[in-house]
C-alpha cells in the first residue's frame, strides 16, 4: 500500500517541486542582485556611506540626503522637471509615429522587407556607447542640424497656415517641437513599431472581409476594426516608451546620479537622487496607465 500512497501524494507535490527548481536560479538572483541591493539602496539614501578598510559602513542620517538633493543641490530639481517634461512631450509623438510607421510597413509595396530592416536599425545602432558618443560628437551635430534645417523650412511654411486656422499657441508650439525632434522620435521608435506591427498582423482577416461585405470604407475599417483591436498595445508601448526614455544612458538625471558619487556629496546623495527619480517614474506611470487603460478596448 505504501508505495502507491506515496506516488499518489507526490504527483502534485513533485510537479510543485519541479516548478520551484525551474524558477530557483532567478529567485536566487533576484534576492542577491536585486532585492538585496534594492534594500541597501534605500538604506544608503538615509545614511552617509563611508568607505573603510576592506568594506564600507553606514552612518544613519535620516532624511539629510533628501533635503540636500531637494534644497541644496544646484541642478537636480530642474533636471528632474526637465526630464519629466521632455518625456511627457515625446511619448505621444513616439506612439503616434510608431503606430503610423507600423501601418505603413504593414502595407504591400516593393522593398517592404528592406524598409522594415531599416526602420528597425536604430534599435541596434543608436544605443549604449554609440548614443552616448553621438551626444558629444561635433560632426553628428552638424549633420543633424543640416537634416533639421530641411524640416525647419517646413515648420516656417506651416506656422502662418496654422495661425490662420486659429489653432491654440501651445498646439502650434508642439507641432514645431515635433518637427524639430523628428530624428529623435524616429530613432526611439524601433521596438514600438515592431510591437504595433505584430498587433496589426494579428487582427483576424475575417473581420476585414466582413467589413468589406458591409461596404465599409477604408477610413471606417481603420477606426472600427484596426484601431480598437490594436489599442491595448498602445498601453504596452506607452509603458515601454516611458521606461525606455527614463532608463536611457543619455538621460541627464541618470548622468547626475552617476557623477554625484564622484563629487563630494557621495553615495548617499546619489542613492537619494535615484530614489526620488524612481518614485517620480512610478507615479507618472501609474497616472498614465490609469488614464489610458480605461480607454483601451479589450476583446475579452
Amino acid at each position, binding site marked *: 500500500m505504501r508505495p502507491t500512497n506515496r506516488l499518489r501524494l507526490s504527483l502534485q507535490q513533485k510537479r510543485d517541486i519541479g516548478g520551484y527548481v525551474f524558477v530557483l536560479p532567478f529567485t536566487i*538572483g533576484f534576492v542577491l542582485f*536585486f532585492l538585496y541591493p534594492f534594500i541597501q539602496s534605500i538604506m544608503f539614501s538615509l545614511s552617509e556611506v563611508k568607505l573603510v578598510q576592506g568594506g*564600507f559602513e553606514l552612518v544613519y542620517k535620516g532624511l539629510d540626503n533628501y533635503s540636500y538633493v531637494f534644497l541644496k543641490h544646484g541642478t537636480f530639481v530642474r533636471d528632474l522637471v526637465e526630464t519629466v517634461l521632455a518625456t511627457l512631450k515625446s511619448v505621444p509623438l513616439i506612439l503616434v509615429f510608431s503606430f503610423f510607421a507600423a501601418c505603413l510597413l504593414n502595407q504591400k509595396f516593393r522593398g517592404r522587407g528592406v524598409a522594415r530592416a531599416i526602420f528597425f536599425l536604430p534599435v541596434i545602432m543608436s544605443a549604449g556607447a554609440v548614443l552616448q558618443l553621438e551626444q558629444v560628437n561635433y560632426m553628428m551635430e552638424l549633420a543633424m542640424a543640416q537634416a533639421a534645417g530641411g524640416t525647419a523650412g517646413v515648420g516656417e511654411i506651416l506656422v502662418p497656415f496654422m495661425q490662420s486656422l486659429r489653432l491654440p499657441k501651445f498646439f502650434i508650439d508642439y507641432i514645431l517641437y515635433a518637427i524639430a525632434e523628428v530624428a529623435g522620435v524616429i530613432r526611439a521608435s524601433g521596438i514600438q513599431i515592431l510591437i504595433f506591427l505584430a498587433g496589426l498582423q494579428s487582427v483576424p482577416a475575417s473581420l476585414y472581409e466582413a467589413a468589406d461585405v458591409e461596404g465599409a470604407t477604408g477610413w471606417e475599417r481603420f477606426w472600427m476594426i484596426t484601431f480598437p483591436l490594436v489599442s491595448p498595445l498602445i498601453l504596452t508601448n506607452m509603458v515601454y516608451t516611458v521606461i525606455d526614455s527614463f532608463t536611457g544612458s543619455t538621460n541627464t538625471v541618470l548622468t547626475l546620479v552617476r557623477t554625484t558619487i564622484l563629487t563630494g556629496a557621495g553615495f548617499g546623495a546619489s542613492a537619494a537622487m535615484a530614489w526620488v527619480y524612481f518614485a517620480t517614474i512610478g507615479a507618472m506611470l501609474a497616472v498614465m496607465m490609469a488614464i489610458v487603460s480605461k480607454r483601451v478596448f479589450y476583446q475579452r
Partner: protein
Amino acid sequence: MADRDTSIRPIARTVTQRLRLARVWRWLIHVGMLAIVAGVSYIILLPLLTKVSASWMTEGDLYDAAVRWIPRSPTVENYQTVWRLMNYPRALVNSLGLALCASALQVAACTLTAYGLARFNFRGKGLLFTLVIFTLMVPPQVLMTPLYLNFRYFNMLGILRKPINLVNTPYPLLFMSLTGTGLRNGLFIYILRQFFRGLPTELEEAAYVDGAGLFRTFYAIMLRQVTPALVVTFLFAFVWQWNESFYTSLLMPQLELMPNALLSIAARYAESQKLASATVGPATVTPLMLSILDGAGMVLYVVPLLVLFALMQRHFVESVERTGLVG
C-alpha cells in the same frame, strides 16, 4: 422601358470613371507612402552615412565646402589610428566572447524561469511573476551604488572572511546572467513565458505517459517547440549586451571591451598627440579631427552588429508576432 435604358448608360459611365479615379487615387497613395518610407529611411541612415563618408576623409576634406559625401583624397589613416587606439582586435574578441557567454547564460536562465512560471502551479507563482515585471521598471541606477560596493567588497553575504574585489572582472556580469537578473532579462522571461503558455498541455502529458520526467520533458520536448523564441531572445540579449555601456563602465571599466574602447578614443588620442608633441612639436587636437575618429570608431563598433543583423534580419523583425509578445 426606354427610360431605364437611357438611365443605365450614364450610371455605367460614372462607374467606370469612378473606377479609374480610384485607380489614380490608389496610385497616388502608393507613391506618397513610398516617399514617406524613403524619407524616414533617410533620416535613420543619415548618421551612419555621415560617419562612413567622413571616416574616409582627411581633416582638410571636411573643411572643404565642395566636398560633401565623397572624399577628395580618400584615406584609411583614420581607421588605422582608431584600430590602434581602440586596440580593436583585442576588444572585439573580448566583447564577442563576453556577449556570447552572457547572452547564452541569460537565455538559459530566462528559459528555465519562464517555463516554471508558464507550466507549473506552485504557491507564490503570481508574486514571482509580478517581481519579474518589477525588475523591468526599476532603473539600474537605483541599484548601481550597492551593486558596485557589493562586488567591490564581495564576501558572499558574509561567508568569505576576506572580501575580494570583483570589479574589473567579468564575474559580476556572468553571475547576473546566470541568474536571469541581467539587462532587461525580465523582458525575456516575459516573452518566453508567453510562448510556453501557448503550447498545448497534451505535449507534456504525452511525454509523462511515455515515462519522461519533468526535466527530460522540458529539454527534449518543450524546448524544441520554442526554438524561434530562443533565437530572438538570444539575438536581443546579444545586441543589448554588446551596446551596454552602463554596467560595463560601472563594473568593468578597465577591461578591453568595445564600449570602453569606443568611449576612450578621445582621451587616448589626446594622450598620443601629447606624446608626439613632446618629440616633434606642439600639436593640437581639433574637435573635428576627434569627431572623424569617433565616427570611424563607431563604424568599427557597429560593423559586427550589422553583419549579425544582415544574417539574422528575418529573425529580428519577423518573429515578434510568433514570440507571442502580443495578445
